[in-house]
């Protein structure tokens, strides 16, 4: 067996470690640990209110004021939920209203915006670019400044206190049209040409070729629209006064503990909060990967 030649110590090349470099290493260590701590801290902070809401909703009124506050659940009770659901207000009806409005806006809004996005991406017609530019530019305006004009307009159209007034304004979403157009621009023309040669009509081109290929964007927008419509507060607050038509977000302000909270009302208020938070959370969990992708398409291609 051959003996490995030993290399004299002074010939081994060592990494050059100057004073400056080692300090830089130390700073990098501190830096990356600092941002990791920040990340963990922020995750904790942003989840805590939700945990606190769920936890408190299972407490009794008195327990909610206990000091030190109980961070774990002792003797859970459904009292608050019973109180909310058996109140004289039609809470279940409010939840149903919200569900109906959100689903309707999502389904019809997507169809409408997918049709428009398709036209902007795939058809040539006079005025197309000007119209598209107009649609885009409204994305930069705060929706709140349209609140009063839209309020007066729907008042004059006699739409207040109807489902229509909650559904129609949500259907035409410039953001959705923009996103779908961007997505449809990337589809290869050959697909459409081939289908046309095979005798497919215009509606079928849209429904059977363009739409299925846009599914990721549609799923993302659908989730987005559902959550936004479900959580919408100011608009229904302004235009709905009829108890039976209120969505949950508005109705809940009438419940004990929402707008002003008495000492023992916190668990009840938290139970109402949990009830209205559950549907969007479920939708988010079901579609989360689309949701994340959808947000990204809009930002990176824009």
């Amino acid at each position, binding site marked *: 067996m051959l003996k490995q030649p030993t290399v004299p110590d002074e010939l081994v090349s060592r990494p050059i470690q100057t004073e400056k470099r080692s300090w830089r290493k130390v700073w*990098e260590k501190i830096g990356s640990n600092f941002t990791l701590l920040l990340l963990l801290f922020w*995750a904790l902070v942003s989840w805590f209110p939700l945990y606190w809401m769920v936890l408190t909703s299972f407490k009794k009124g008195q327990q909610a004021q206990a000091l030190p506050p109980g961070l774990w659940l002792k003797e859970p009770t459904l009292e608050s939920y019973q109180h909310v659901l058996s109140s004289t207000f039609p809470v279940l009806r409010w939840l149903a209203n919200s569900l109906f409005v959100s689903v309707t806006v999502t389904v019809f809004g997507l169809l409408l915006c997918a049709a428009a996005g398709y*036209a902007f991406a795939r*058809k040539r017609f006079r005025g197309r670019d000007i119209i598209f530019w107009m649609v885009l530019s409204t994305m930069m305006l705060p929706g709140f400044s349209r609140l009063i*004009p839209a309020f*007066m307009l729907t008042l004059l159209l006699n739409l207040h206190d109807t489902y229509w007034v909650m559904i129609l304004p949500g259907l035409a979403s410039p953001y959705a049209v923009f996103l779908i157009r961007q997505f449809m621009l990337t589809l290869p023309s050959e697909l459409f040409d081939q289908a046309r040669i095979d005798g497919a009509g215009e509606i079928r081109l849209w429904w059977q070729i363009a739409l299925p290929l846009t599914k990721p964007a549609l799923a993302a927008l659908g989730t987005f629209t559902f959550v936004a419509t479900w959580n919408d507060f100011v608009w229904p607050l302004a235009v709905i006064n009829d108890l039976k038509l209120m969505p949950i977000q508005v109705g809940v302000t009438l419940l004990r503990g929402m707008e002003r909270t008495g000492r023992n009302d916190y668990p009840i208020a938290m139970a109402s909060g949990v009830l209205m938070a559950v549907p*969007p959370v479920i939708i988010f969990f079901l579609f989360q990967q689309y949701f994340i992708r959808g947000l990204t398409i809009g930002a990176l291609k824009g």
Partner: protein
Amino acid sequence: MNYAKREEMWGYIFVTPFLVLFLVFVLVPTVMSVVMAALEWYDRKPVWVGFDNIDHVLNDKRFWQSVRNTLTYVGMFTFAAVALALAVAIRITKFRHQGMRQGLQSAFYLPSVVSLVAVAVVWRYIFNNQFGLINYLLSVVGIEPVNWLGNPQTALPSLVFMDLVTGLGVGIIIFVAAVLGLPSELFDAAHIDGATGWLETIYITIPLLTPSILYVAVTTMIVAMQLFVSVFFLTKGGPVGSTLTLAFLTYRYAFIFLKVGYASAVGLALLLLTLALAVVLFRWFRSVVEY
């Protein structure tokens, strides 16, 4: 009918249903928001009053207070939201495991799915000066309780903090995607030149992210300008007007004091101020980065 004509016809057919609703519920109200500042309403009938409303608004102390509060909130919130989201997002991209990254993105997004109405009520509880959590934690460390929402000095910053806690999700998701989308050759080149860790982040990652940062900053700013729900539930504009915002002032004048003309003028101010800020942000970003 030739091909081009047919295509044009179908273009109109596809776009019309959207366009009708867009005109009625987006474009017309936008135009009206300018016109309505010059109208006052009597029993559902508009009367032209010219610059009266605008005059009133410009001479109203509460309006200027709202402008100040709104801009303070927007400044603090936008800056903190972009900085925090960027820091967290860059740290998320350092995780090698893709599932880990996606899980973190989802985890940070989830709180913003919950309605602001629900969130606001939890925070009133957390901010409560007798048995709220924050004051309890402070008392453990020996600090006197603070009436967070009842003190004009702390009310607005408290709202900023509360909205930050739920408001970072979108920014984080966009920044993570943007960082992962950067061409890796640039980083290889930087490594050869000896840039790692902090240096890499500051001199390479962040400059390359400028377009995404601008996008997040502008969209965050637009949302922040319309601060309403947390004010409505937690402070009602008080104490002593320290959380009065333009959106809340608009709402209060229109639907509580029923002065629609005045409210419209405030709404118009909100619109113009938002546009002005957007232009400022665009300009500023352009001057920071030379393309």
